[in-house]
């Protein structure tokens, strides 16, 4: 059998991830197995995966492979095309960074009571599962890999299981993952019933009526949307992601959510192969809702990792906005515009993987150094952890979609796609898209406010507690892991035309057309539609920024006194400021909390004038709980209470029920 070397590389990545899982097993006896063998193998697996993915992207490969594993009548089908290659590369980069970062981080866990063997073993299985989902080319293998990924990550979420809240979060995650998995399974079932088989090749050829196709679309949107944390199915995400160890949180937010995006794209854009504008509207609305809700709740959090998890909801919302635009444009016969929106979605997917991975690793470094996740206790970390502070700043600027870093490019592309709405014929759609772009603009501005709060409260100012004051620099491995992702954030921001040239084959494979105009004006100029419509030159803006900075420094420093003298803060000449007088995370968010008060369920207790021990308490609850989850849970419980009536404890009654069931079944099949 002749296997393409790129495919061999992908298989090597799978094997290395599995091996990393196996060599972690002795970690219960020898904790070093995790640091010296398992995590380095994981990093190598990431390198191999990103290599295979990049290979597939650059050469535009479309390979298939059948392995003699699995069911007798359904061997495992694997594939490596441009779409799979892109997501393979994305996962690979993040796994590499996590593998480099991990050894120093798990060292802090060695004295804990948690099982390191479980951490290493399930990390390897988790990565194997993610890679296998992307490589799968039949519905059966896809579901097996999907469940492997979900189950392995369940054990990672439950890693710190001493804390009851963490056990609860892990159970919620398991429950939601399985409801979602069921929806995906049913979606594949609809497709398979028409196709007569489970291979993607057959599913692609299935002829579905619009009704069945829409049902399939609804099921996979539910299933993958649940995994991707779309509002209102997001409630598990801010519970589950923060409680895993930080490098796993980075993988979950950065990579696993993208696997859900991959699944959605693969099934809706590739397998179903029909496009209806109604679907686009549904995806657009879900995306906008997620983006806005996600960022508003992120703004209100004071737990750093929880805040980052809510911000993932927001970013996934932006990705789905772009995907919705692609669906809309494709259904109305504008494949080039659809390709533009699609490329924007992919670009944002990789951007989010990079900066969210970076921010979670940074939060992990802070946690490692101070044992603190609460922003209200932090402060002044930039001076104590300069490298982490620098990398975290890069992540904050990137996620706030500010030029010249990568987040801005994908947001710019999404806006450019939305601004082409005038080409649509339907007035309703023409007016829907501007509203969505207004939501996107509002989201972007709120993200900037959120990350000013995060960085300002955690890294600037003065330390608000003693253990944060004693924070120290984290080990080299942790800095390297963050540095790798920070460098990618800068590169993807400065060289957008090269990145889009890499993404083009994916769009071409899906829509039959790429963005031929994107680099028409040379590599310096990014012109997604045409040079007259819009252009952006990131390299030249960096050059100009540097030039102007040079001029500014020369101009400002020609004064007589060049030396900077240190003094006490002025603060309007009032009493000398203490750390407790600084603006806290909650007070920073207060104006926005007040402006958007309708979005939250607020429980605010202010001290009264007569309190001897004044305390301020604030709790913010998610409306999704009271509107969706609690009624559902209550309905399930009351249904269960009805079923209890059957349970009389009398054997004869049970036998009677069994007989009745048998009769009914016989009647049905006869």
């Amino acid at each position, binding site marked *: 059998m002749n296997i393409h070397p790129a495919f061999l590389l992908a298989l090597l990545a799978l094997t290395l991830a599995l091996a990393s899982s196996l060599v972690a097993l002795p970690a219960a006896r020898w904790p070093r197995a995790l640091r010296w063998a398992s995590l380095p193998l994981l990093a190598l697996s990431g390198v191999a995966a990103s290599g295979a993915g990049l290979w597939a992207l650059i050469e535009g490969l479309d390979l298939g492979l059948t392995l003699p594993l699995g069911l007798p009548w359904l061997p495992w089908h694997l594939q490596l095309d441009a779409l799979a290659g892109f997501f393979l590369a994305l996962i690979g980069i993040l796994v590499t960074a996590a593998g480099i970062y991990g050894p120093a981080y798990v060292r802090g866990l060695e004295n804990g009571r948690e099982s390191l063997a479980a951490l290493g073993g399930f990390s390897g299985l988790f990565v194997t599962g993610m890679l296998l989902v992307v490589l799968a080319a039949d519905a059966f293998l896809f579901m097996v890999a999907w469940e492997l990924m979900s189950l392995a990550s369940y054990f990672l979420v439950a890693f710190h299981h001493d804390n009851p809240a963490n056990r609860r979060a892990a159970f919620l995650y398991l429950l939601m993952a399985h409801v979602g998995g069921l929806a995906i399974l049913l979606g594949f079932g609809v497709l398979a019933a028409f196709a007569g088989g489970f291979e993607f090749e057959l599913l692609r050829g299935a002829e579905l009526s619009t009704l069945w196709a829409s049902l399939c679309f609804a099921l996979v949107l539910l299933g993958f949307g649940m995994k991707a944390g779309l509002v209102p199915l997001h409630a598990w995400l801010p519970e589950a992601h923060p409680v895993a160890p930080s490098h796993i949180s980075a993988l979950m937010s950065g990579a696993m959510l993208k696997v859900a995006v991959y699944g959605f794209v693969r099934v809706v854009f590739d397998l179903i192969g029909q496009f209806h504008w109604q679907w686009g509207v549904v995806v657009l609305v879900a995306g906008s809702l997620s983006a806005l809700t996600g960022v508003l709740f992120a703004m209100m959090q004071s737990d750093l990792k929880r805040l980052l998890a809510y911000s993932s909801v927001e970013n996934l919302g932006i990705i789905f906005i772009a995907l919705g635009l692609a669906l809309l444009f494709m259904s109305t016969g504008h494949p080039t515009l659809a390709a533009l929106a699609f490329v924007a979605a992919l670009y944002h997917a990789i951007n989010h993987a990079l900066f969210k991975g970076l921010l979670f690793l940074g939060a992990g470094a802070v946690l490692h150094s101070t044992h603190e996740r609460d922003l209200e206790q932090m402060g*002044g970390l930039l*001076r104590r952890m*300069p490298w982490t502070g620098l990398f975290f700043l890069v992540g904050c*600027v990137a996620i*706030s*979609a500010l*030029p010249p870093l990568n987040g801005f490019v994908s947001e710019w592309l999404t*806006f450019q796609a939305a*601004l082409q*709405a*005038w080409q649509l014929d339907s007035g309703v759609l*023409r*007016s829907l898209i*501007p*509203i969505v*772009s*207004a939501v996107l*603009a*509002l989201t*972007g*501005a709120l993200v*900037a*406010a959120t990350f*000013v709060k995060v960085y*300002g*409260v955690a*890294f*600037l*100012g*003065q330390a608000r507690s003693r253990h944060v004051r004693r924070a120290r620099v984290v080990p080299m491995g942790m800095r390297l892991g963050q540095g790798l992702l920070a460098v990618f954030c800068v590169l993807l921001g400065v060289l957008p035309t090269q990145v889009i040239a890499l993404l083009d084959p994916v769009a071409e494979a899906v829509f039959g057309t790429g963005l031929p105009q994107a680099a028409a004006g040379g590599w310096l100029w990014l012109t997604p539609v045409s040079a*007259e419509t*819009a*252009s*952006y030159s990131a390299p030249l*803006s960096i050059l100009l*920024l540097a030039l*102007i*900075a040079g001029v*500014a420094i020369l101009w*400002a420093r020609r004064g007589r*006194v060049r*030396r*900077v*003298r*240190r*003094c*006490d*803060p*002025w*603060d*309007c000449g009032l009493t000398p*400021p203490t750390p407790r*007088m600084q*603006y806290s995370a909650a007070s*920073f*968010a207060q*104006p*926005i909390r*007040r*402006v958007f008060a309708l979005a939250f369920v607020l429980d605010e207790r202010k001290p009264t004038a007569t309190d001897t021990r004044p305390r301020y308490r604030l709790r913010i609850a998610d409306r999704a709980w009271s509107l969706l989850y609690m009624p559902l849970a209550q309905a399930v419980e009351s249904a269960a209470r009805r079923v209890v009536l059957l349970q009389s404890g009398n054997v004869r009654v049970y036998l009677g029920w069994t007989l009745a069931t048998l009769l009914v079944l016989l009647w049905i099949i006869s």
Partner: protein
Amino acid sequence: MDEPVMLSAWGMALLQALLYPALAPLLIGWVRKVKARLHNRRGASVFQPYRDLRKLLAKETRVAHTASPLFRLAPYVVFVATWLAAATVPLVARDLPTAQIADIIVLVGMLGLARFFLALAGMDVGTAFGGMGSSREMMISSLAEPAMLVAVFTLAMSAHSTSLSSVIGYHLAEGFVLRPSYLFAFGALVLVALAESGRIPVDNPSTHLELTMIHEGMLLEYTGRHLALMELAAHLKLLLYGVLIANVFVPWGIGQAFAPAALALGLGAILLKLAVLGAALAVGETVVAKMRLFRAPAFLNLALLLALLGLLSHVILEVGA
């Protein structure tokens, strides 16, 4: 485009970029002068802001013990990002290469970058007023920025381009047409400009009273050349918004060619437009009182609503017709 023309275009862009910081203090001085006359005061000379900047540059720079390196970096980032944003707005002549480097969305992004670092600098020393200023600034901007983007989208959608040169060119070629979408966008942009450049009724540029300040709160700890850069950046921002409104909505007079006559006309036209705008700003600030902080969101929601109405009236009334 052949080489000599390209060179002159880049030279023109450079010259225009230099004109911005040169003119920005003058606009501030003009507004202050008009305001003083309206108050029946003589007021300082219109050149006073230049003297203030010179004085600040010559003074010693002091930095708090508690400040991090970001505090010293921020003034440069803020100034540079604001200047780059300004350099992309056609001032005297229209067809500039800088407008291709960065379109309107990049302009908004650059202003966002400047604001991001300004707000961080406000929180750096760890004083209460700094954090207060940053928090309020981000609240105002998180409502003003979407309004600005949506207003700008209205213009971009009519011109089918997000490049400012093209938008102005489209408007010039079309002649004077009173479009409802333009009126709405104009209203929105004016409100945003007032809020973003820290003018009455959202912020008061001439007070250091603690409870009312937003922008000044973030600058409290700055001295010497750092303060000079921050001040000049604020002046640039006002000029940028002024030029944006003047040249996008009333583009007539702007230089279409790089010939001396056209450029002189362009310079005269923009100076006249800015003088009128500055006087209008001074009159507005004299007759309107500053709002309470929590009235500002209503003000900015009005801006967002106007911008959205503009966009909707464009896609519904003007595209289909």
